[in-house]
């Protein structure tokens, strides 16, 4: 029942909430006192970064840790981790692009080598490395194990990214979501739209994750079928010889 609901509702719900976020963000919410119309990127960039860093990399790390624990080890967890990192890479790219688009008029530069931006770029390299590592291993179990270890090791970068704006002096603004005093200084309707954007992009992540997971399952099934056919073919050849 839950699975069916997820399959049927996740896509339309994600798209609906994204559309609502864009409508509120671009037509309903007011311009900002300092940033004016540029503030509309607030409804994309922080939510996309939230998904890239915490939701997707968090999902991949938890799935990897559970895979490495013998009691919970399963192929499904490996697939979830791989799919989450792949979707994460998409969101990391989106974070860097949207940040850059916001940075040019707001800061005056497309890119700054400060701690927040650099550590986020490093996370992108780690995600690419994770996917490359999976391709480098043909043995399924070995691939899953090595990828899981790599994912957990590289996830250490996530708290570094989060706290970089507190530990060091950066051009990037301080954390607006999980700030040290847990306060979000965003005006009424802007705050609500910001919250909605977080829900919309989080749902979108799970929708994409589900789709990517399904592709992985179908690919494995196809591989199994092709292997069975080859064995059968070989068996026929040997018996015929």
């Amino acid at each position, binding site marked *: 029942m839950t699975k069916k609901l997820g399959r049927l509702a996740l896509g339309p719900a994600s798209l609906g909430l994204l559309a609502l976020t864009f409508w509120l963000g671009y037509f309903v*919410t*007011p*311009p*900002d*006192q*300092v*940033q*004016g119309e*540029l*503030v509309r990127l*607030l409804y994309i960039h922080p939510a996309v970064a939230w998904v890239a860093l915490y939701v997707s990399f968090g999902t991949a790390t938890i799935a990897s840790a559970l895979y490495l624990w013998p009691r919970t080890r399963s192929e499904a967890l490996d697939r979830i981790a791989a799919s989450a990192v792949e979707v994460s890479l998409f969101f990391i790219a989106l974070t860097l692009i949207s940040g850059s688009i916001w940075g040019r*008029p*707001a*800061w*005056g*530069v497309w890119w*700054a*080598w*400060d*701690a927040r*931006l*650099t*550590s986020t*770029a*490093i996370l992108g*390299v*780690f995600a*690419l*490395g994770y996917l*490359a*590592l999976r391709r*480098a*291993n*043909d*043995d399924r179990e*070995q691939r899953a194990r*090595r990828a899981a270890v790599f994912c957990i090791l590289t996830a250490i970068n996530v708290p570094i990214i989060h706290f970089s704006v507190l530990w*060091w*002096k*950066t*051009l990037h*603004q*301080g*954390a*607006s979501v999980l*700030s040290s005093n847990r306060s979000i*200084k*965003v*005006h*009424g*309707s*802007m*705050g609500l739209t910001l919250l909605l954007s977080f829900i919309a992009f989080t749902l979108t992540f799970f929708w994409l994750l589900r789709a990517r997971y399904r592709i992985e399952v179908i690919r494995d099934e196809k591989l199994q079928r092709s292997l069975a056919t080859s*064995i059968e073919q*070989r*068996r026929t050849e*040997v*018996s015929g*010889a």
Partner: protein
Amino acid sequence: MVSRYGGGVITVASSSPDQLSPVAPPAIKSRARRRNLVVLVVVALSVVALLTQGLLGSLNYFKTVDEALAQRHLLGTKVIRLEGLVAPHTISRTSSGASFFLTGLQGKVFVVAHGTPPQLFRASIPVVVVGHFLSSTSSSFDGTQIMVKHSSTYIAKHPKRVKAPNGSVR
């Protein structure tokens, strides 16, 4: 049993139809190990390159006005990133950019910046200016680039505006 397939030679364990698994996979394993190593080396080199370009050179992206003034004799005319608040009523647009006072908690620096300031540049906001002091004793700063450092506070421009029944905003 030895069979030829596509120009290569495959050794099959037995001619029995029930035993079809290949005999010698170690070559694949060593290739996988080599590929793993290549991936890890490429990742490590990329991270080192990013760290060298980014974090290690400037873990702290800028020096505040007070820090820079305190270290002025050491900094000399070295290019640095200077952060401070744009003092109100001091901005003057010049033919090549803008000049203004940048204040810290205690000191202030006179900045002459070249190039077009960013869209959000104005008085009473924090900015980071790339440039250098004119000398190791001077409090004048020659800037080549201004970057605006905005906060994470977002407040509506006209919070008390209401929409009239005819749709117009008042």
